[in-house]
């Protein structure tokens, strides 16, 4: 049960979202009204090392993390699958436990394979 019977959870979530937007908008408005404004070419440059920046910054970037991102996808979807199971574990007993054990075994096998292949190694 939420705060009031008359208001649905969806309406409350929308209220909270609008509250967040209002907070940012109002604070920005106040800041724009009372903060000073000035412009200079030097000030508008990216803050890097003091010397002029070289080339674009919105580039393709070799992240050592992309394999982690792919693995994340698998394990996050796994987490989503586990939630419905988690709610009913008590009722399922040993049989449900065995079924989910097979599911998790396959996943752990996948992690072990990725580990063995060196996907978790920093390159």
């Amino acid at each position: 049960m939420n705060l009031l019977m008359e208001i649905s959870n969806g309406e409350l979530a929308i209220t909270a979202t609008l509250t967040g937007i209002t907070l940012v908008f109002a604070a920005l408005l106040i800041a724009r009204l009372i903060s000073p404004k000035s412009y200079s070419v030097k000030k508008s440059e990216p803050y890097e090392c003091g010397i002029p920046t070289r080339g674009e910054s919105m580039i393709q970037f070799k992240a050592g993390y992309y394999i982690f991102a792919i693995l994340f996808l698998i394990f996050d979807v796994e987490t989503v699958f586990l939630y419905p199971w988690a709610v009913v574990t008590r009722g399922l007993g040993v049989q449900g436990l065995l079924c989910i054990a097979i599911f998790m075994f396959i996943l752990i096998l996948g992690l072990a394979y990725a580990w063995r292949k060196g996907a978790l190694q920093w390159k």
Partner: protein
Amino acid sequence: MFDFSIVTNWVNDLLMGFLPSWAAVLVECVIIGVCVLLAYTVLALFYILYERKLCAWFQCRLGPMRVGPWGLLQVFADMFKILIKELISLKGTDRFLFKLAPYIIITSSVVMLACLPWGNGLQIIDYNIGIFFILAVSSVGVLGILLAGWASNNKYTLIGAMRSGAQMISYEISLGLALISIVVFAGTMNITDLVAEQQSAWFLFRGHIPAIIAFLIYIVAATAETNRGPFDLPEAEHELVAGYHTEYSGIHFGFFYLAEYLNLFIVSGIASLMFLGGWMPFHVPGWDGFNEIMNYIPGPVWFLAKAFFISFVIIWFKWTFPRVRIDQMLAFEWKYLMPLSLLNLVLMAVCVALGWHF
């Protein structure tokens, strides 16, 4: 236990009395919005002072002392100062995404704050999949950080955002698995029901070994999830200037600051609700007099005290441990924390299926 819904129902009846029902709902929504906003700002102000004072005490300093008694008014001075700073417009930024990022980050933390129940009947959003909803909203916050880093047109912010993305998505798995083990134990995802289950004893004590391991995993993952402590790689100032918010100035930077502190409160709040019994008082079986005295302390005080205690531990981490390297951090999650949390989940499931719990 005092039921807060008496108050809300009274307000509702009062408004329904002289307004048409749609107008009453609208007014109630506005009241709720104002309350959330107030809670958000007050908590953020409190946390800024809390962190500064604790950091000072850990380093044998006094912390802010000049403005007001014990520096209590320092945060207001800081807030005013950050409002009157110039919002610098930069060359080459993606203007739309640059301005969108603070909205996403702040909004996701406001929605998460609205999901936390503070007391009996004192919750705003209460889905039956409550804890899942919170995790879903928390992953939207990552988008804001990635956008902020990408749109700034600066190499440091780009690297900071990439690191932040990798870190937050990695530790989200351990966080989720630690929370699932509690869901397995309680058999519900509704946060109010989860807390109500802890009437007799907190989950940390009822679920014995797997619950304690889950709690420890949760605290470590939450520290990483909020980009704090030894895991503050995305804003490591020795290598990345200030990470993903380098190019933000004035109140724009303030939003990131605000969201960081609120996220600290939110992860502590979730720990308090899921493991330490939320608004339920501390009871020792057999000590009836002691339990009666504990019952007199109101629920919100219990909830906030537990949340502030967890935050204290997380801040303690930050000022105790040196910052780890990025590869160490990812290896720690994928090679130790995640297999451990998977095993812990299996252990918890076995305990529940065989009835080895209190």
